């Protein structure tokens, strides 16, 4: 970590920790506002400590496990009248580099109509969980597998054959291929919950329907700030809210996944946009009284430039299913559980016919205790099972998390 990174990270933390002094109380409970409410600053801080994860089930990249992470998010909104607002968020993990997680302008063309146009590094369009990745929105400590578990696919490097792909099963935390960038790096999840994509997004809503569509630079698995293949992703999501407490959602996205360098390395020029990721998702949320139930399934297909025999049966498909529930036991105390499964389509190579990535199942149960209304202690235990690959096939992991937000 460079000195500047450390200074920036500490400054980020400083905003969070200095805020209490302004309000002369132990911890701030509300966003900091300036200019008559035109500027608001909020923050989310979560400190997680848990078991070592030798199976790399919870890693979000080579260095960061979701079970051992200090995450600081500072978000801000600047309202420049009834039609324009600028929103941004800085994030740092384990006091590393401070990254601009989000930065976009929100334009409301008609002040009295719920239609917004977002331009810049915009919020996720696809899926339900991507909009609630903050610790206070996630009843457990782990993330749903579809949004966190690193598969062995990379946008900047591709396997030359099916055999090479099968050799890399379960190594998504640090994988290396022969085509494209040959340095080891992390693979991608089905949908990234840790980065915003860049582009233009339009959103409209009324009491019954919320619809969002976006044209962005990357794909749901690999959101980007700088384009790497000259292609654009189109994503859309529609939510129906027929009765209070019930949300029915459907999402779809399609865009070029493989970067230009990797594609050229495999098949030469002119094919940059052929190697796509297509994703479809459905989700249901129902809540009433003390219950909250969520279900989400995502299907993702990738087309890769596999050039050597044995030839792959394209596309490579991954299917995730996640069921989550939360029940409030008493004021300030809840119990939660999530069952997650990631399955993959089969391919044939010298090793036989196998799923192209090792299927993973996770069961996580936990509980949350509110110390004050914006300070939450979570405890959880998760059982991870991986069917194949070279790494630890089973792990039982414990974790505790302290989450604070204002």
């Amino acid at each position, binding site marked *: 970590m460079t000195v500047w990174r450390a200074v920036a990270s500490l400054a980020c933390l400083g905003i969070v920790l200095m805020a209490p002094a302004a309000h002369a109380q132990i911890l701030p409970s*509300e*966003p900091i*506002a300036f200019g*008559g*409410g035109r500027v*608001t*600053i*909020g923050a989310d801080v979560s400190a997680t400590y848990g078991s070592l994860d030798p199976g790399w089930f919870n890693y979000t990249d080579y260095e960061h496990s979701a079970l051992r992470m200090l995450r600081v998010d500072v*978000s*801000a*909104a600047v309202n420049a009248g009834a039609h324009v*607002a600028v*929103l*941004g*968020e800085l994030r740092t993990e384990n006091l590393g580099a401070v990254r601009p*997680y*989000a930065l976009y302008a*929100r334009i*409301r063309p008609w002040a009295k109509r*719920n239609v*917004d146009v*977002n331009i810049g590094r*915009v*919020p*996720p*369009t696809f899926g339900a969980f*991507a*909009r*609630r*990745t*903050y610790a206070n929105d996630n009843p457990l400590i782990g993330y749903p597998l579809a949004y966190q578990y690193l598969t062995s696919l990379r946008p900047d490097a591709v396997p030359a054959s099916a055999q090479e792909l099968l050799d890399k099963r379960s190594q998504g935390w640090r994988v290396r291929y022969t085509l494209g960038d040959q340095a080891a790096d992390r693979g991608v999840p089905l949908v990234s919950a840790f980065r915003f994509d860049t582009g233009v*997004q339009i*959103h*409209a*809503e009324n*009491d019954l329907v*919320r619809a*969002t569509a976006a044209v962005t630079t990357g794909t749901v698995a690999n959101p980007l700030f700088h384009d790497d293949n000259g292609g654009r992703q189109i994503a859309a999501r529609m939510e129906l809210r027929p*009765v*209070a*407490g019930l949300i029915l959602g459907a999402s779809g996205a399609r865009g070029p996944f493989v970067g230009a360098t990797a594609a050229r390395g495999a098949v030469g020029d002119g094919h940059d946009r052929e190697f796509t990721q297509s994703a479809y998702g459905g989700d249901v949320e129902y*809540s*009433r*009284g*003390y219950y*909250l139930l969520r279900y989400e399934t995502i299907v993702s297909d990738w087309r890769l430039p596999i050039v050597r025999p044995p030839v792959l049966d394209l596309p490579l498909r991954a299917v995730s299913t996640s069921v989550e529930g939360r029940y*409030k036991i*008493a*004021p*300030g105390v809840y119990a939660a559980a999530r069952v997650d499964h990631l399955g993959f389509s089969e391919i044939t190579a010298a090793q036989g016919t196998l799923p192209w990535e090792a299927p993973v199942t996770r069961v996580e149960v936990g509980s949350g205790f*509110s110390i*004050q*209304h*914006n300070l939450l202690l979570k405890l959880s235990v998760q059982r991870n099972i991986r069917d194949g690959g070279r790494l630890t096939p089973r792990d039982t992991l414990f974790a505790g998390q302290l989450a604070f*937000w*204002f």
Partner: protein
Amino acid sequence: MEIHTRMTQRTQRTRRAERGAPVQSVIVFLISFVSFVSFVSFVFVAQPTLQAPRTGSIRGRVELRRVVSPPERRPSVADPGAPAGRDLPDLRRSIVYLESAPRGAFETNEGGRAVMDQRNETFVPHVLAITTGMTVDFPNSDKFYHNVFSLSKTQRFDLGRYAAGRSQSVRFDRPGIVRVFCDIHSHMNAFILVFSHPFYALTDDEGRYRIERVPPGTYNVVAWNEGASSDPKSVTVHDGSIAELDFSVR
């Protein structure tokens, strides 16, 4: 004959009079007795009413010497749409109350109900003052869910999620300050001040208050606004008088 007749009439009247004397005595006795009993009752039973202490009032004005702005929404960075408009809570209202008050006849724990509505993502009223034993209803007047809860030491409760037109209630049996939140809308909050006596008043738009029916005596009075309290001020209330007391809350 005429004389005899007169004599006879007089004799008859005399005899009637002699026969009626005991009846009159009984009537007189009864009237006297009733009058005596009434007098005694009046003197010994009604006397406490006559001697009951007359009450006074405390009135004045609360000046807010700090700028309190309504809680803003958290920046909705992850939401693709701008949040809907909402009502802003009225933060000018203060509560003025006696720090301690005579107990007994003036203490009321007889229950009763109050309402704190959830309307356009705001608790209405933003500040509610009640006495112990009262029940507060929390109706949901919005089209979407709310989830009222409090983690205050005075009263912890969580009413769960409920839809428009529904209401849940909480009975408050302990005095203290209860901070109320919505678990779904983090910018929604309100205060419920629970007193063990009825000697408190809510200020009006201009900060004026009046505490009625205060028994004569010397009291410490405090003004409270949005979690901040003034220094206690001592005031003496006399029979039937109005004590003036102004506050500033910083």
